[in-house]
């Protein structure tokens, strides 16, 4: 049986064009339309089967958090209905309902009440919660004396120990110290094995590949894919690149034109590079007019949009005090310490004195890394030795 069925849901926000919350300004501008509609979610259907783990992929502003908020009931959809079978616990905002003046014990009861759970039931699970949070000696202290880690631990312990049928998870579980994080991940895996439904919202493709059975991709509020994780990740990346190149529209009167960005490995043009091989990035650009003290910025960006490496090369350190005509700047790396994945390269040219960016090239150049070994992740660390007793 389906745990979540959403039919024809959409969400439109009425944004105030000139946000003012005062009555005076409202009265002054009573006539005329001062709101702008923003469609955060376009009409879509969605269903999640009981026991399934669904990933929701999307870049920032794609509507994925809005969708999750609608499912959890924090927001209501503008149209359509969502039917949810079973108890929901969300790991969105842990300990959001805590009051600093009250003790951990009092807050556990209030937090559970926010989830609509009776005092009797929470009393029965209280010991489990305190055990899980590892807060025995502090449970009768006001939570204002807690560290942020303790705070979040207690919030997580409440959410996870209330026997939810559906778990909503936003982004990575960055909770407390590493030992506790591992404990949380184990608990999420256990949830899967117990046949509970999990919805994970993320822009990290790895998470989807590792834990999800199915994934949807949101792009500008539209559901563009609803398929297997691998296929969804591919579609997500295509849209991510599209979004990045949209952002960089070259201005015709820019002082510098970037002609090309060449990606080589050991002098050979390369689209695919083996992990640990050399990498050379060459920026070819032409100055339309003289530019003093030029700087070339090069960065390597992960599929999730995170900058893995960025450097500003001050050309005056390399004998070019001012740009004139066409230049080729090559940055060489002896070995590329990345693992499997597609990586984007972006570049900018600007002058050091003014803050103006002379030219940008984003989202057009990429290379893939193939890793022949068994390690996975992002960074290829050199494993020196393994000792075993």
């Amino acid at each position: 049986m389906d745990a979540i069925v959403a039919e024809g849901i959409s969400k439109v926000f009425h944004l105030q064009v000139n946000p003012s919350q005062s009555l005076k300004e409202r009265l002054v501008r009573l006539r005329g339309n001062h709101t702008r509609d923003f469609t955060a979610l376009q009409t879509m259907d969605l269903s999640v089967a009981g026991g399934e783990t669904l990933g929701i992929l999307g870049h920032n502003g794609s509507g994925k958090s809005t969708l999750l908020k609608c499912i959890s009931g924090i927001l209501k959809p503008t149209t359509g209905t969502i039917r949810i079978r079973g108890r929901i616990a969300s790991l969105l905002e842990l300990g959001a309902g805590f009051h600093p003046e009250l003790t951990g014990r009092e807050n556990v009861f209030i937090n559970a009440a926010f989830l609509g759970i009776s005092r009797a039931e929470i009393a029965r699970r209280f010991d489990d919660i305190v055990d899980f949070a590892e807060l025995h000696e502090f449970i009768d202290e006001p939570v204002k004396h807690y560290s942020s880690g303790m705070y979040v631990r207690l919030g997580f312990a409440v959410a996870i120990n209330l026997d939810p049928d559906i778990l909503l998870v936003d982004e990575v579980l960055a909770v407390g110290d590493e030992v506790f994080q591992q404990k949380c991940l184990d608990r999420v895996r256990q949830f899967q094995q117990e046949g509970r439904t999990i919805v994970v919202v993320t822009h990290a493709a790895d998470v989807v590949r590792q834990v999800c059975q199915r994934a949807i991709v949101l792009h500008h509020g539209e559901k563009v894919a609803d398929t297997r994780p691998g296929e969804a990740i591919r579609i997500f990346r295509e849209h991510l690149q599209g979004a990045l190149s949209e952002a960089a529209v070259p201005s015709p009167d820019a002082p510098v034109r970037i002609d090309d960005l060449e990606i080589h490995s050991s002098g050979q043009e390369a689209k695919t590079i083996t992990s640990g091989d050399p990498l050379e990035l060459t920026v070819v650009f032409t100055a339309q007019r003289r530019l003093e003290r030029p700087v070339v910025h090069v960065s390597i960006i992960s599929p999730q949009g995170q900058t893995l490496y960025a450097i500003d090369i001050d050309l005056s350190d390399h004998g070019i005090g001012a740009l004139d005509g066409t230049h080729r700047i090559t940055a060489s790396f002896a070995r590329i310490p990345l693992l499997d994945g597609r990586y984007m390269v972006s570049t900018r040219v600007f002058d050091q004195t003014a803050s103006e960016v002379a030219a940008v090239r984003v989202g057009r150049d990429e290379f893939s890394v193939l890793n022949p070994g068994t390690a996975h992740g992002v960074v290829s660390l050199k494993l020196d030795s393994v000792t075993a007793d």
Partner: protein
Amino acid sequence: MSSAGGSRTELRVVAARRSIVAHIREIWTFRELLGGLIRKELKVRYKNSVLGFLWSMAQPVFLLAVYSFVFSILGAGFENFAIWLLCGLIVWTLVSTTLITSVTSITLNANLVGKVPFPRAVLPLSTFGSAMVHFFLQFGTFAVILMATRHHIEWSYVWLLPIALLALSLLLAASALVLSVVNVRARDTQHLLELALTAMFWINPIVYEYQLIVRWLVAHSWPTWLPLINPVTAIITTFQRVIYGAAAVDDRQLLPDVGAWWYLRNLLIVAGVSVVLLLGALRYFDREEGNLAEVL
């Protein structure tokens, strides 16, 4: 684990609109949250104070002492003036506390509303609930004062009090719901309300007597029911008639010399209007609720 088994079949529907019945049912399932929030509010208010709840109870005693002293010096008012005053003040405190705390009940909890799903109506209703707890504490103190001073209340009219409280509760619940949402859209509401409450204090017959306005209205050929347009007046006059007692109609002519039916009629009108207002308030609240997380 039987209740956990029951939750397996629980079905929740999230949609832009829902029926008033569904809305009320949802609030009802969160009744423990309502109770918890009221307890939390009281606990937090008296955290780190030695006397705790006694502060709420001490207020009427203190007011009684101050007003008795001031008016005995001024020579104003009438016999047992402090008791007359308290009848009105205790009701007025409930009204003003509810309104002033409910108006900010959502805006002050913006963090919670943006992050935790629960029926938002619980927030304004809990401020009303804690104002009600204070009311009963003060009422209890007032009762002790009445017994200590051997004041004669009108026993045969006492049954009007629960009806008055019920009517007032409906009215205050509706006001709390509407004010809390309106203040999200226009933050001026809370400041406007503070001013309005000062004015509203004086349009209620608390410090003066109801018959004073009636006599003025008669003298100017205005209809005498005009003051009853203010629903709180109907509640306050009921409290005065019951607690101040028969003396209010006998020689001093503080209240109209009519039977209990007059008070009952007033209360039933207030209750009827309040039910309509409450249904409207729930409908309005439901419409706005789904966007609160975004507007805040």
